[in-house]
């Protein structure tokens, strides 16, 4: 257990001391949302209608941006080979990385969502549901992202391939994520979103660990 805690500590330190990394994601998230009113025009009813979709797309893109940091630095400096030899199982190492990845890339987006809500003329009710849906759905995005990043880590320029692998997996998350905000059966969609996240988070560490350990260095 102390090994798992040490892994969490190391990842948190590396991410938070990285300086602008977290801020870059948040700014990207806000910018994607902020350019929409300029592109579709300042029609408040239209904006409010498409706002949940825009927020989810912005969150999806911003989380893709952070995926490169998950395994690639460790692969490049040789740490990944050593992590494979660690006493702590590789799946636990990946789980720790996944938790920290969610903490430093999804939580800041949640905190920045009020800004987008104002820009996109959301009402208070759908803003509340957006927060819940993002909080429940982003773990699934992070988990699928971790699988994609693990599969492509040993490929040079694999960072460009990972999104293509992840996109089909993420489509259900987007459908139920937006559904839980706008659909008349939003309760059922929210539950399904939570189930997706639970399943993805439970399976991803094992799948990603398998991908890493079967890749040749």
């Amino acid at each position: 257990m102390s090994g798992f805690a040490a892994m969490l500590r190391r990842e948190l330190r590396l991410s938070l001391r990285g300086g602008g990394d977290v801020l870059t994601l948040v700014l990207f998230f806000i910018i994607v949302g902020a350019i929409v009113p300029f592109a579709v025009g300042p029609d408040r009813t239209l904006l409010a209608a498409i706002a949940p979709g825009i927020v989810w797309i912005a969150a999806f893109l911003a989380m893709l941006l952070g995926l490169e940091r998950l395994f690639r630095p460790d692969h490049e400096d040789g740490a990944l080979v050593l992590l494979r030899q660690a006493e702590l199982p590789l799946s636990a190492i990946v789980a720790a990385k996944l938790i920290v990845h969610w903490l430093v890339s999804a939580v800041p987006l949640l905190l920045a969502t009020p800004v987008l809500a104002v820009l996109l003329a959301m009402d208070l009710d759908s803003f509340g549901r957006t927060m819940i849906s993002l909080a429940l759905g982003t773990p699934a995005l992070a988990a699928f992202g971790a699988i994609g990043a693990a599969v492509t880590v040993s490929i040079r320029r694999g960072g460009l391939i990972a999104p293509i692998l992840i996109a089909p997996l993420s489509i259900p998350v987007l459908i139920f994520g937006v559904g839980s905000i706008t659909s008349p059966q939003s309760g059922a969609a929210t539950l399904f979103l939570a189930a997706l996240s639970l399943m993805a988070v439970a399976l991803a560490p094992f799948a990603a660990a398998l991908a890493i350990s079967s890749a040749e260095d």
Partner: protein
Amino acid sequence: MTDRQVFSPLRLSASGLSCGRGGIALSTDIGFELANGHALLLRGPNGTGKTTLLLTLAGVIAPLAGSFAAEGADPDTRWLHYCGHRNAIKARLTVLEDLSFWAEINGPTGMAPREALAEVGLGTLDGLDAGFLSAGQSRRLALARLLVSLRPVWLLDEPTAALDTEGHALVTRLLDRHLGMGGLAIAATHDPITLSDPTRLGVLQLERAP
């Protein structure tokens, strides 16, 4: 040598081992036997597969042919340290944080991290951002990782690269003590290594595959 034997009996044996990258064999028909307290030096010109052989032994690359076995190794624990030519040191962590992290996830069974840092000559730099270490100092930090967790087998890839004369002596001293404790080591190096007991040292000459 009257050191305490720390490691249980272990025998590494390889026969007919052929390893390579991308399906192309670099070195073929490698065979050796190694018992507790002995080290094997891999020699050979560049491109003869020394690093590839070490990665194969570490289980990172699958061998093209042949077999490698460790008799007596406990299957439930990790029994080898791989020290590659990349040092796996993270900027933004201090020297002590980096070493303590590896001690935690590999099991703090060896020296305390501060003690290990003093041993490799980084005792006064524990609070420094590891990204500021020179090439030789990074190498010393990578070697310190071998000391904080006890594992019987060391696989060393160019352990003396970027090290000064005193650093060469350090590698020799660490190897001497590790073998004295009953450890085993396989090292790829171009530098001469003189152990206090030369009978412990074997040499495996790698040739380019035809």
